[in-house]
């Protein structure tokens, strides 16, 4: 009896051991994971693909390559895990982007989700990032409501500022030039009928008034406008020395062309998204000189220089000189936060809120989950889109005004 019992016992023990042994590797993989899953849904097709194609996607791809080339994401214990990417195409549809993020969070159970492109889409997915506890490093979203959003979604980060920031900076540049006697105190202003254009122009109106600049022409045009003959003519006739357009790339290009065709030479020419694209400088050559826009680069910053070189090397094209830098920097922040705090999303979020990071855009410390140290105004000078405002920030270049007249090409 005893023997038998013992034998039974032994048998049970043996079985348990086998079970344990079998279970052990599972536990081990859960702990010693072989990769970090990073997911994103961006518009690879549809109306938003143009914006995604320059500002968002190349930087996501570059970052993943950079990280994986270096052996993966570094964790607090010094080990490195390669990034495994799960990507979806939201086809420029709000419903798709919402569902894709749900899928990334609950189906693919990725470790981190990178944000989509555009103010609207970032807002559409913000409740989901919040619900599933993912930090949302919203870059391509210019909004003055960021403080409100941070209250609502405490893991959301708004890195491209709001319309007020850009409008105020521009107003300062204009008011300075005006008081210097370089330009008169009138501005002609147009804006695209879109969240971006409206946000900026509503901020610009009071900003101009406060800066003592009179808005003599102020119209909004629908996205997709291809002909700006009348707009340019009216602006020319308005007597303003400054022409400001809060525009999107296709219209930015069209406005530049039309201004040249009509020989419209405002002393300040400030255009919207697209001006900071390298192709803009290339297309317009010497005629780009003096044209201003949002963003800008501190060309003397070595990290930034390295970033641009890498971007060109890996993606085959130069980055745009506004959103791209911030996009890549936001990923560097994420990378660094993971290095400091591991893969725990709450800890990483906490680090993002409170930490200080060295990035391609310089040293970044978020204030109330928002990036406040931004280059707000840039200007093409000598073939480079340099940052000119805020003037008190290190690396700022002095704006050259008035813009020189168009040259025949």
């Amino acid at each position: 009896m005893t023997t038998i019992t013992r034998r039974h016992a032994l048998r049970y023990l043996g079985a348990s051991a086998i079970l344990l042994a079998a279970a052990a590797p599972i536990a081990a993989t859960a702990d010693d994971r072989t990769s970090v899953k990073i997911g994103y849904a961006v518009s690879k097709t549809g109306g938003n693909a143009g914006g995604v194609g320059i500002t968002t996607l190349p930087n996501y791809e570059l970052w993943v390559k950079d990280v994986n080339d270096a052996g993966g994401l570094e964790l607090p214990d010094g080990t490195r895990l390669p990034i495994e990417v799960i990507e979806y195409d939201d086809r420029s549809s709000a419903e798709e982007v919402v569902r894709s993020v749900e899928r990334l969070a609950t189906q693919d159970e990725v470790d981190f989700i990178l944000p989509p492109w555009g103010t609207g889409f970032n807002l559409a997915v913000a409740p989901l990032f919040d619900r599933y506890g993912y930090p949302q490093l919203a870059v391509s979203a210019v909004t003055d409501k960021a403080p409100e959003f941070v209250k609502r979604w405490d893991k959301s980060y708004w890195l491209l500022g709001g319309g007020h920031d850009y409008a105020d900076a521009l107003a300062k540049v204009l008011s300075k030039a005006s008081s210097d006697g370089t330009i008169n105190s009138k501005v002609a202003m147009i804006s695209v009928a879109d969240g971006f254009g409206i946000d900026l122009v509503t901020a610009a109106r009071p900003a101009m008034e406060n800066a003592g600049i009179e808005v003599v022409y102020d119209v909004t045009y629908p996205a997709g406008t291809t002909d700006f003959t009348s707009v340019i003519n009216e602006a020319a006739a308005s007597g303003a020395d400054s022409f400001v357009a809060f525009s999107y790339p296709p219209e930015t290009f069209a406005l530049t062309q039309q201004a040249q065709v009509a020989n419209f030479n405002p002393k300040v020419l400030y255009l919207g998204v697209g001006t900071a694209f390298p192709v803009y400088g290339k297309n317009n050559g010497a005629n780009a000189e003096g044209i201003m826009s949002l963003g800008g680069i501190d060309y003397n910053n070595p990290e930034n220089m390295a970033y641009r070189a890498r971007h060109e090397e890996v993606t085959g094209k130069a980055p745009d000189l506004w959103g791209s830098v911030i996009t890549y920097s936001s990923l560097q922040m994420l990378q660094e936060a993971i290095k400091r705090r591991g893969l725990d999303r709450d800890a990483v979020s906490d680090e993002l809120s409170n930490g200080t990071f060295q990035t391609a855009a310089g040293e970044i410390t978020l204030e109330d989950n928002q990036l406040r140290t931004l280059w707000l105004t840039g200007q093409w000078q000598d073939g480079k889109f340099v940052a000119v405002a805020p003037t008190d920030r290190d690396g700022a270049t002095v704006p050259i005004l008035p813009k020189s007249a168009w040259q025949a090409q």
Partner: protein
Amino acid sequence: MLMTTLIAGLVLGGSYALLAMGLTIQYGIARTMNLAYGETIIASAFAAYLLYNNLGISPILGLVIIAPAGFVFGWLVYGILMRPLVARSENTATLEINSILATFGLLFVIQGVMLVIFGGNYISYNYLNFGVEIIGVRVAANRLLALGLALTIGGGLYLLLTRTRWGTTLRAVAVNPAAAPLVGIDANRAARFAFALGGALASSGGVVVSMYQTFTASSGVIFTMKALIVVIMGGVGNLAGALFAGLILGLSETFVAAYISPGLTIAAVYIIFLVILLCRPAGLFGKVQK
């Protein structure tokens, strides 16, 4: 002011007309609704961009290469994709549905290929971007070229269609594809030719437009819809109608921008389109038959 607006409108309208003529031929004569029309335009724009940017070939010269390529492409698409559908469809209504569905697929294929090759970026380059004085108004040379091309092609094709035997053949097919064989016309060949011709016109339009308009791999749909509106407004299959409708839309856009508000230009285009259709349900030059 008035003169400037007028000329700017004509020039803008010229490019609308140019972009619509190929579609009106494809839809009016070959009887196939080609939703991938805009993709042909964009593909040609990319081709022109590549030739200019990488090989330094001017878009004008590029036109000589790309337009025939557009013809060949149209010829192949009709032969491979549309012909079996035409043969299968028992009436124009089924053919219409089938061609909508099939070219919808084609749209995605072309767009997808362009996305893979070029990515989703905005493409823009400057060519012939200088002002030309016309009656005291400065107009962009590249846009003027578009207007010139629209008038030349429109006029040339009009003469071809009305004055030649070959044109009569095409028109006969347009009016009654079923009866054409009875008078010894190879309807299939004529339709295929018309479709290919439409492709060549789309390509020409794409090349010219690429000189001044920013485009992406995804923007084909915009061109298709704009072209469709011009075609419908002018009357399906009617070249003069397309030209006229294009000019009207161009003029209304510039006049609204100048005298009402630039914010309402696109709305005005649609209002005018809708009102014209309500007054003339078969377009400006179309005939309503009982």
